[in-house]
């Protein structure tokens, strides 16, 4: 059995459906996840796999309608987040559990100074007067290494660069010492040198504060550098979950293997050869999510697909003590 710190968030069998003009879209189909205190779990997958919807469900940030959570529980601190009254979830949001998003410009209020926005979060959730909240905000800006904090405090989001705005978002998200930080593609919109700065900052703050992080990303390089455990999603399901070293060294699911093989890597070529090696590709396209999934969703693209794969969906089952795979042929794949 898996040991380690106690779980702080347990998602069981979550399913989310969107009603659209073209009919229902089954975005998340039975996702279970456990996050332990202080750990970083990466949720990876390609566009449309349901990773962001899963993340947004935790703090109930999906607009309903069109979104409808059809089944599942998300237990946090002994209560089911999906069943809590709105007032209660608001006291958790931004406080015990906070979130940062891909595009900091759209998540910050353009007409309020950044200082005021951080102060507001602190004043809402923490005891103390306005002055203390302001001091806390200044402290947080300092912590995320914003230079010249007193001047920056009074500036508006448009006066900051993209990297600085993401620092402000992180300062705001961590202002109330959250137990869990959900980071949805936090560096995707940033240039590579700025991405390196932000990832370094996130990892340092995690060390200092002990916050658990649910990192949603499509970038396997970021995963390798930041996560302890990885859950791979495909078409609304988790298809493999394992410690980060095992995912990269010994992936069992044919999709995970295909994904890892298809990333171009620096220095992964025959130096001096006339032509670069062809990249291994995963043939075909991601299935449409408008039909309820019955079979294995990857079967149409899978090199190992057999009759069983087209009839029923494989459950996520443990193969080793801490490595789970949803594949009927995982043993033969290994």
């Amino acid at each position, binding site marked *: 059995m898996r040991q380690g710190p106690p779980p702080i968030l347990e998602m069981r069998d979550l399913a989310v459906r969107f009603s659209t003009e073209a009919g229902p879209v089954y975005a998340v189909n039975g996702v279970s996840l456990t996050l332990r205190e202080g750990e970083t779990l990466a949720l990876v997958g390609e566009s449309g796999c349901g990773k962001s919807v899963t993340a947004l469900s935790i703090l109930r940030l999906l607009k309903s309608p069109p979104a409808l959570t059809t089944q599942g529980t998300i237990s946090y601190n002994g209560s089911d987040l999906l069943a809590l009254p709105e007032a209660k979830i608001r006291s958790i949001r931004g406080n015990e559990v906070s979130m940062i998003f891909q595009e900091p410009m759209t998540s910050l209020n353009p007409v309020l100074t950044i200082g005021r926005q951080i102060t507001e979060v602190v004043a809402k959730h923490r005891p103390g007067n306005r002055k203390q909240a302001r001091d806390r905000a200044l402290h947080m800006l300092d912590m995320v290494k914003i230079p010249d904090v007193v001047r920056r405090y009074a500036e508006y989001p448009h006066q900051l660069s993209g990297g600085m705005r993401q620092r402000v978002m992180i300062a705001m998200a961590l202002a109330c010492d959250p137990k869990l930080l959900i980071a949805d593609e936090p560096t995707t919109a940033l240039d*590579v040198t700025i991405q390196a700065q932000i990832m370094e900052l996130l990892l340092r703050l995690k060390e200092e504060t002990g916050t658990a992080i649910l990192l949603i990303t*499509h970038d396997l390089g970021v995963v390798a550098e930041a996560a302890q455990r990885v859950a791979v999603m495909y078409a609304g399901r988790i298809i493999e979950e394992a410690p980060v070293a095992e995912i990269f060294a010994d992936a069992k699911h044919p999709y995970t293997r295909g994904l890892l093989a298809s*990333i*171009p890597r620096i*220095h992964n070529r025959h*130096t*001096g050869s006339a032509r*670069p090696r062809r990249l291994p590709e995963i043939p075909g396209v991601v299935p449409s999510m408008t039909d309820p999934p019955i079979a294995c969703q990857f079967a149409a693209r899978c090199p190992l697909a057999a009759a069983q794969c087209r009839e029923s969906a494989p459950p996520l089952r443990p193969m080793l003590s801490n490595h789970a795979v949803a594949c009927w042929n995982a043993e033969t794949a290994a």
Partner: protein
Amino acid sequence: MTGHAKEARTEGEPPLLELTDLKVHFQLKKELFQTTKHAVKAVDGVSLSVRRSETLSIVGESGCGKSTMGRAILRLVDPTAGTIKLDGADISRLSGKRLWQHRRKMQAVFQDPFASLSPRMKVGAIIAEPLVNYGTVTGRKAALSRAAELLEVVGLKGEHASKFPHEFSGGQRQRIGIARAIALNPDLIICDEAVSALDVSVQAQIINLLMDLQDEFKLSYLFIAHDLAVVDHISTRVAVMYLGRIVELAHRDTLFDTPKHPYTEALLAAVPTPDPSISSAKAVLSGDVPSPINPPPGCHFNTRCPYAEDRCRIESPVLREIAPHHFVSCHYR
């Protein structure tokens, strides 16, 4: 044949595309009480050449001018100074009919396959349009049947010609854009972040397709990208841009194995490695890219360079050949 042998063979030939001191400046509106007009120097004196059948990649972060340079070559924006020679002809001041005649030799594939295909045209008509426009086939019917052939070349089916772009996935749309780009048998294709919007599994398909088409049709690519791993995979040579200037230009292997410019070093170090067994201890570059309206005097990189000295803050370094075919713009390398 090795890459170097191929290079040696093509070196004698005149390059397909040759930029000499290309500048693209955008004038900003004069503000009240402002005495001088400011300009964004998006491309600020770039000289380079693209040889036949090679892929020259241009890498750099947002705002470095790489896309503006691509647009200037396509003559979608007017160059402020300098020349653009395509197949020996200076096209930098041409317009109208004369430009139209040269333009068929170069095509473009853009980043967003959703924005670059007209949603109201069927795929067959989209691909047939350049064929009809340049009269390379006679009659609508012949154009459409050629379009169906081109769809097969890029890995789609001929019958897809009668569908609309919205019926395709992102990767399939990028294939349609590529089919349109190769329709006129161009010599040069400018790929502006052509695979950046795609998921990795689909990205691999499109990278492979681009490489196959290059072999089959002897295409040259000017490959504008920010993803260094993709660039490492696809390029013959690589140019690194920073604030409108080229800071390093070399053969792909040279640039990735022995980068010389501090900015190139920092860029390569910043790329996260998809391998947890490699320790990620790295020197993170501090600060942001300065504004291209008021770039720092001297070397544009001096505000972020860990090795900057007084000279770098005063004097602009020139791009010089420090080893055969390896160009670096730094006082101290």
